[in-house]
């Protein structure tokens, strides 16, 4: 396989993603973990770009980094009261969890490696047209309209629900 700049950048993103994800699950400081998660999310956004999903990449950054991550940080602040909250990990649980995780990973990798249909599907470097307008048409004009509307309702419900659950209960 020919090593081009593009490939290098790809591997860079891949490593960034995996490395930071590893950090997310290992660091003890929850705030650090949150920042590591941010890096992971950026990495995934980069991979989206490689997959020529430009709109998605942008969405990933805006929603995840700008929204969800901030939300998580708020959660951290409101529950711990201090940013330096430590994460306890028990040894036994760690071992068991690690074992299961590795088994799972092995399994997945075996499946990926042994599925013939997925072999030899390589990126031929073709550039596609930007997807934004197409996504807009699909969502607002064609057969994804209904799921889209449902999703919007779901969001609304989640919003209201979250507000309801988290509000301070008025004790009689």
């Amino acid at each position, binding site marked *: 396989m020919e090593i081009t700049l593009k490939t290098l950048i790809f591997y860079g993103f891949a490593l960034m993603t995996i490395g930071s994800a590893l950090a997310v699950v290992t660091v003890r400081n929850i705030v650090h973990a949150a920042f590591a998660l941010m890096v992971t999310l950026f990495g995934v956004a980069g*991979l989206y770009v490689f997959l020529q999903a430009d709109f998605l990449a942008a969405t990933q950054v805006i929603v995840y980094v700008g929204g969800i991550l901030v939300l998580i940080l708020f959660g951290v602040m409101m529950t711990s009261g201090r940013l330096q909250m430590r994460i306890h990990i028990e040894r036994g649980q760690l071992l068991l969890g690690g074992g299961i995780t590795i088994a799972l990973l092995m399994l997945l990798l075996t499946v990926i490696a042994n599925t013939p249909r997925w072999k030899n599907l390589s990126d031929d470097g073709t550039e596609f047209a930007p997807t934004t307008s197409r996504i807009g048409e699909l969502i607002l004009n064609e057969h994804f309209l209904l799921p889209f509307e449902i999703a919007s309702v779901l969001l609304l419900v989640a919003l209201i629900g979250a507000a309801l659950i988290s509000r301070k209960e008025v004790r009689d």
Partner: protein
Amino acid sequence: MTLQHYLVISAILFSLGIFAVLTRRNAISILMGIELILNSCNLNFVAFSRFVTPPENIDGQIIAIFGIVLAAAEAAVFLAIILAIYREFGSIRPDEVDTLKG
């Protein structure tokens, strides 16, 4: 960059997410694990959409968008529940919240 590259990255992310969910003793860390899992799924969708289906078909991306929406909603509700639990139990350690213990 073949499909398998992406699949491997996705698998690793997924496993890490599972690992976090299984082992972390903090509800917010669990949430982060879940976010990892969701991201790995989205990545799979987009990758399959790119390599398997014809180029003009971008349904996989759409699904991914919905996945993001779902994640957002999930995160919001999850955090709300965490807040409620925190108020109720004074802790967000999942092993301490065991009212349903048989």
